[in-house]
């Protein structure tokens, strides 16, 4: 546990430096260059105290079965709010089936999780602590017990929500965490300065060529959307791009049937949703059904949500199963028309947006260069500082795309 205080202090200090309180306390704030205003729900307005409380809850490892796992474990501020692992390691080092998405700009998404099974940040925050391979808790009670018995938390919850300790619920906890996450926003990348700031020289020639490819030949812009005055780089929709289908190839009917019977055997809708939440992280085959587990729509088999590409150079490894390590691997995957090797079979459920691209080596390099231009300066700085401080390096992340 020697490193823990450093991480906490560093990230809090950096958080303070980057996301200094007053400027993010109200909705009417100007968002970073290239981004629209952050959507704030009417029933969870931002206040400095709520954000600070959320930040604290986000980092609190007591909210797990072994006292070692917090949100920051898998969504670490110094690792661009992810963990740079293919699939996350939770309680007792247990792994699930999916890669941890970055929290940066997650506030703009129209749903949360790779399969969109929660509508918002508040909903998302409640799941990991009680998932067997993440926080490992049986329910939210242990969290609420800790909070009710902690003098500082009691004071903060009373100040923020006006609740007495016995009336604190997981919804309050979730709201505070969501409020903090709504400040984890970053734009103003070299791409933004070029495209929206009018700085001709913010991108290199290679990156400019990459931007042109992004729009037409590389076929990125329809899902990783960019627009005339802003760019979210995600359509928040679900597409099967061919990742991970090998795990269920040819057996989709049997697996879908097995899943549907188990789902419809649950006592009611609520129990069915709880069953899904656990099944998708513990059962690889059910996980690969993707969005289908929610909509039961034939055409959602193997479909996953489009992530944002902002800061993508730092959020390796890539895809819902973390199976692609570098941006070059990703570009090759798309260039091959949704497969790792050009002569692999193609899943019949493949989105109509994916097809072989016939990019030259130069074009591939230009495209990667462009993707690297989507890193926000403060995120790049934080990652570099963390690297310098000797935090985090693990074998699987050595040699990643950190600038």
């Amino acid at each position, binding site marked *: 546990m020697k490193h823990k205080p450093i991480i906490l202090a560093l990230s809090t200090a950096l958080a303070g430096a980057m996301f200094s309180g007053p400027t993010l306390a109200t909705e009417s704030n100007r968002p970073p260059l290239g981004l629209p205003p952050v959507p704030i729900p009417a029933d969870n307005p931002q206040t400095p105290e709520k954000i600070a409380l959320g930040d604290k809850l986000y980092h609190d490892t007591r909210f797990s079965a072994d006292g070692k796992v917090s949100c920051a474990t898998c969504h670490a501020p110094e690792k661009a709010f992810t963990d740079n692992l293919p699939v996350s390691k939770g309680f007792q080092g247990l792994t699930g089936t999916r890669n941890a998405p970055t929290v940066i700009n997650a506030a703009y998404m129209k749903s949360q999780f790779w399969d969109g099974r929660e509508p918002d940040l508040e909903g998302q925050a409640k799941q990991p602590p009680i998932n067997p391979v993440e926080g490992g808790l049986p329910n939210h009670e242990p969290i609420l017990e800790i909070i009710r018995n902690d003098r500082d938390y009691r004071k903060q919850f009373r100040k923020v929500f006006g609740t007495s300790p016995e009336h604190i619920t997981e919804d309050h906890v979730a709201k505070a965490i969501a409020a903090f996450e709504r400040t984890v926003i970053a734009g103003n990348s070299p791409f933004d300065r070029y495209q929206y700031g009018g700085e001709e020289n913010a991108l290199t020639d290679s990156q400019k060529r990459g931007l042109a490819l*992004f*729009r*037409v*030949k590389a*076929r990125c*812009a*329809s899902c990783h*959307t*960019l*627009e*005339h005055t802003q*760019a979210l780089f995600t359509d928040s929709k679900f597409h099967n791009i061919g990742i991970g289908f090998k795990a269920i190839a040819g057996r989709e009917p049997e697996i879908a049937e097995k899943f549907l019977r188990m789902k419809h055997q649950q006592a009611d809708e609520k129990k069915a949703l709880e069953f899904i939440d656990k099944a998708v992280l513990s059962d690889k085959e059910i996980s690969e059904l993707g969005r289908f587990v929610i909509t039961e729509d034939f055409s959602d088999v193997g479909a996953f949500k489009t992530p944002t590409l902002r800061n993508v150079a730092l959020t390796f490894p890539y895809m819902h199963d973390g199976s692609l390590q570098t941006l070059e691997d990703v570009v090759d995957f798309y260039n091959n028309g949704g497969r790792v090797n050009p002569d692999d079979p193609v899943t019949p459920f493949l989105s109509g947006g994916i097809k072989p691209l016939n990019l030259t080596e130069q074009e591939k390099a230009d495209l990667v260069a462009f993707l690297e231009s989507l890193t926000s300066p403060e995120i790049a700085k934080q990652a570099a500082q963390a690297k310098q401080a000797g935090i985090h390096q693990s074998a699987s992340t050595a040699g990643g795309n950190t600038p």
Partner: protein
Amino acid sequence: MKKQRAQSTILKILSLGTAMSLTCAVWADEFTQEDLQRWNQEFMAAVKTGDKLFHGGLGNANTVSCDQCHPNGANTHPETYPKFQQQLGKVVTIGEMINWCIQNPLEGKPLALDDPKMVALQAYIYWERRNVPLQPGKH
């Protein structure tokens, strides 16, 4: 003395010019019915070329032709350009979208925006869409 002579020279030139313009009406900038018909035929020749290109004349290897998805140019909406083209992530003119189609479903090579083939394609597309009011920007 010099001034008077200059003035009279100017007057002479002016009157000569007026006389010429009165007698030489054909030098005035008026086009005729014949001009209009001829120029229209020039345009329709481009429409005819565009029609052929549109109906399988682009020579792309995969044999897909524009008319397969756009019979009679339907659903191309030339009257809505320039517009924000969601697929390209920016505001474009119709030529850029035609090139997108050539490169994507047709898997062919894009045309220069002033290539006579590009112009012919647009002539055909606009001709099939004649009399539809302009609605620039409409999705």
